[in-house]
């Protein structure tokens, strides 16, 4: 036991190693328990045709993305050009989940607003935003009160879910999709899911 004096040093390095690993983790990224589980079903009004509804089964047999967005969401603006480019290159169909378009916006006092008025306002705002910034979505649906968002475990915008042919969530991207995440994570996963049939 000549090297006994090294014990505190080794303990220190062990502790420093744990702490260094901790620094690489992002506490804002809460892992979703929904991965590999069937996506929660929903039926919501379409933004382009509010009289019609959309539900998950319409995408059965497809590998697709559900992208949560809102016009008040600053990070969505950052992500949007990439989504538009993805749509031009026809990489994958993307359905938009417009999340709390009106009541999520801190600039609007939605207290006591009738749901019809809120829906009309949401449609007007969301459509204007897509006109201004381009519409990369196959279609968007309106989650006025954020209930579907809760079912998907959404806790911030944007979030993107990768859903396979059988309707299972296979991956969740938290925050804006970066070109790097698209190339190195999303596209390989999409191709893998397509090969898997």
């Amino acid at each position, binding site marked *: 036991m000549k090297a006994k004096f090294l014990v505190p040093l080794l303990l220190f390095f062990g502790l420093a190693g744990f702490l260094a690993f901790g620094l690489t983790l992002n506490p804002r990224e809460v892992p979703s328990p929904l991965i590999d589980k069937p996506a929660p079903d929903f039926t919501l009004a379409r933004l382009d045709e509010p009289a019609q509804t959309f539900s998950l089964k319409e995408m059965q047999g497809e590998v697709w993305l559900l992208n949560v967005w*809102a016009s*008040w969401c600053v*990070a969505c603006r950052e992500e949007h050009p990439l989504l538009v480019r993805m749509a031009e290159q026809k990489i994958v169909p993307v359905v938009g989940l417009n999340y709390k378009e009106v009541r999520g916006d801190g600039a609007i006092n939605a207290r006591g607003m009738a749901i019809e008025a809120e829906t009309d306002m949401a449609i007007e705002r969301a459509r204007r935003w897509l006109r201004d910034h381009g519409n990369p979505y196959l279609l968007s649906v309106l989650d006025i009160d954020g209930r579907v968002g809760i079912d998907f475990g959404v806790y911030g915008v944007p979030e993107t879910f990768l859903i396979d042919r059988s309707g299972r969530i296979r991956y969740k991207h938290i925050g804006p999709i970066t070109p790097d995440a698209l190339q190195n994570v999303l596209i390989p996963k999409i191709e893998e899911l397509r090969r898997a049939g």
Partner: protein
Amino acid sequence: MPGDTLSAVLRRAALVGGAVAAVLLAGPVRAESTAPASTPALAPALAADPELEADAMELSHKLRCLVCQNQSIAESNAPLAVDLRNQVREQLAAGKSKDDVVDYLVERYGDFVLYEPPFKAVTVLLWLGPAALLLGGAGWLAFRLRRRRDEVAAEPSLSAADRARARALLESAAGNAQSESPESRS
């Protein structure tokens, strides 16, 4: 003056704290709605039945807000926390048990939503680690103390001749010290 130093330290701490807060606030690029924390998007509803409201609040205190992360959904005014509080209230009002409501949220947000992590394989170290460290430390201490006692017992005792020699040495050393510095006593 100590008062000045203290206030300077406090001022500096406040500045550093403010800078850290500013960095943290500027950091996240994601938005959980742009609503300031003090104005929830919708009026926080209250259950009509006070007992139900008490249950809902008790449960809300055990659920973590995913946006602020260091507040429960009862304390937070983030829009998502308001939504989740309303969910808790609604589901309790619909006759669901507290466990049902907790399961509902864990299914969607994971164990992270619980302030008290459940006891399972991945959390064994978390729950038992401190007790294991304490027991391990106590065991190690007991082991060391026993070994020390044995070592002391095993040390050879001095014979009468050794003692006499040691005494003679000590006395002569004391005598030398006195003779070398007599002036110190005057």
